[in-house]
């Protein structure tokens, strides 16, 4: 099972109680993300770390999440697909996620960003998943 997650889903898993975190923690190894996504989430921690948890504890939480639950893949995995990905999605920060989805076998990209991801052109190449879709996939026998 390979489901690609974007920065939105990573942040939700870190700060939000509920279904997103439950799905990720309930399915170790089912989720993947590009390394740039992890870097972006870390670099912008002052935006989502609203409880001002010290960096070493934030780092420990992220490390634990990515050690067993979300696999972080290096750019070398998806670099060859970046050119095509950049023609499919308008936000350059989303290119690594799309490129990763083009580069490996997967069940789709899990995102909350329907505005940028739900374009007909992109959907001809990758499957875009909302939280309900992911829940459905993971409950399939």
């Amino acid at each position, binding site marked *: 099972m390979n489901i690609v997650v974007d920065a939105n889903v990573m942040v*939700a898993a870190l700060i939000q109680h509920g279904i997103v975190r439950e799905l990720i923690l309930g399915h170790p190894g089912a989720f993947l993300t590009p390394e740039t996504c992890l870097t972006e989430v870390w670099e912008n921690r002052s935006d989502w770390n609203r409880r001002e948890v010290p960096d070493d504890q934030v780092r420990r939480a992220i490390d634990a999440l990515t050690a*067993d639950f979300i696999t972080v893949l290096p750019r070398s995995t998806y670099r060859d697909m970046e050119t095509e990905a950049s023609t499919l999605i308008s936000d350059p920060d989303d290119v690594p996620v799309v490129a990763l989805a083009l580069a490996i076998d997967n069940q789709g990209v899990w995102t909350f960003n329907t505005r940028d991801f739900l374009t007909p052109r992109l959907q001809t190449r990758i499957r875009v998943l909302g939280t309900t879709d992911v829940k459905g996939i993971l409950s399939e026998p």
Partner: protein
Amino acid sequence: MAETQVLFRVEKELLEALDKVLSAEGFKTRNEWFRAQIRKALEESKRARVAGLLERLTVEGVREEDVVEMVREWRSRKGRR
């Protein structure tokens, strides 16, 4: 695979009860069941540890659309820099 033998003491009635449910749960042997229980316990322990670490970061009342907006905001700031 290197294996270590483990000996357990267990009440006879408990073992008989286990044997009755083993196949219903899809296990062929006690050994297979025991291995599965170890894996499950280790996974659950990892999950509980990570959940504890994430609890410290949890913010009440955040919705999916709030997260999308947050990410959009930091990206737009980057664009302005």
